[in-house]
């Protein structure tokens, strides 16, 4: 089975995890001042990269923690994982 390394629980089966979307988004710093275009970009528009992509996943059946996963969208290879509250180690590409 495909394994994803949870930063706390270790390598676990992919079925224990839930996909949580793009992990590189940043919410507009000043919500009141952000324009409709900026909000639309943040809420709806997503890149669809071919290759390494930084994503959020949740270890839903395990420790319930959100984690960051760098995954190759072409091969489904997991390149790096780490806690969600800090940048992933290593280069994005």
């Amino acid at each position, binding site marked *: *089975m495909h394994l994803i390394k949870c930063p706390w629980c270790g390598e676990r*089966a992919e*079925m224990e995890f839930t996909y949580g979307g793009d992990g590189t988004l940043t919410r507009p710093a000043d919500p009141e001042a952000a324009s409709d275009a900026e909000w639309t970009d943040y809420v709806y528009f997503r890149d669809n990269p071919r290759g390494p992509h930084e994503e959020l996943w949740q270890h839903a*059946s*395990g*420790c319930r923690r959100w984690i960051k996963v760098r995954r190759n969208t072409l091969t489904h290879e997991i390149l790096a994982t780490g806690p969600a509250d800090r940048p992933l180690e290593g280069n994005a590409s």
Partner: protein
Amino acid sequence: MVEVLPRRSALEGALEAGTFGAGGTPGLTLSERRRLAIVHVAGDAGDPAFTDAVRGRTGLDLPIEANTTAAGNGRTILWLAPNRWLVVCDGEESAALETGLRDALGSTFAAVNDVSQGRTVIRVAGARAPDLLAKGCPLDLHARAFPTGACGQSSLAKINVLVHSVDRGADGGTDAPILDVYVARGFALSLWEFLTDGAGEFGYTISPMP
């Protein structure tokens, strides 16, 4: 006056003692651990005031390392997630355990919740116990990867469970390996049906409940 209803097992009526499945010597035993006190504790593992308070009430050091447990004095503390634990106690009132922990923690930044009635604990024991769970669980249940005292939250028959490796028989346990499966009460019957169905090929005994 508040009337406290007696605890009623989620497997009441489904759990029927006897020997079932394939003939010959049964490969495993299924039973339910009843009347356990189960308390969920959350707090900062790096705060000595928190860890000392829990040690003071339970006599056990909180397991800080992932997927490990601490056991003694009839109590077990299971690691669930960073800063989250389950304190399980046999032969103590859950309300007493909960209020005891809460009193010990005082104003420390922590949360204590009695979840005894929300969990069902099924004990799977015997040589084929890991084989039975492996039918629906992606955890590596081999004694090398899941030794005595290990625990892990995972999925069993697509139901979220917590598996506790109580005894792998390394020190000559008679009924080993013993694995405890913690499941949310609402899923208990469904899981029980999965386990009894899957255990048929090994032959299994269901222990009578007191």
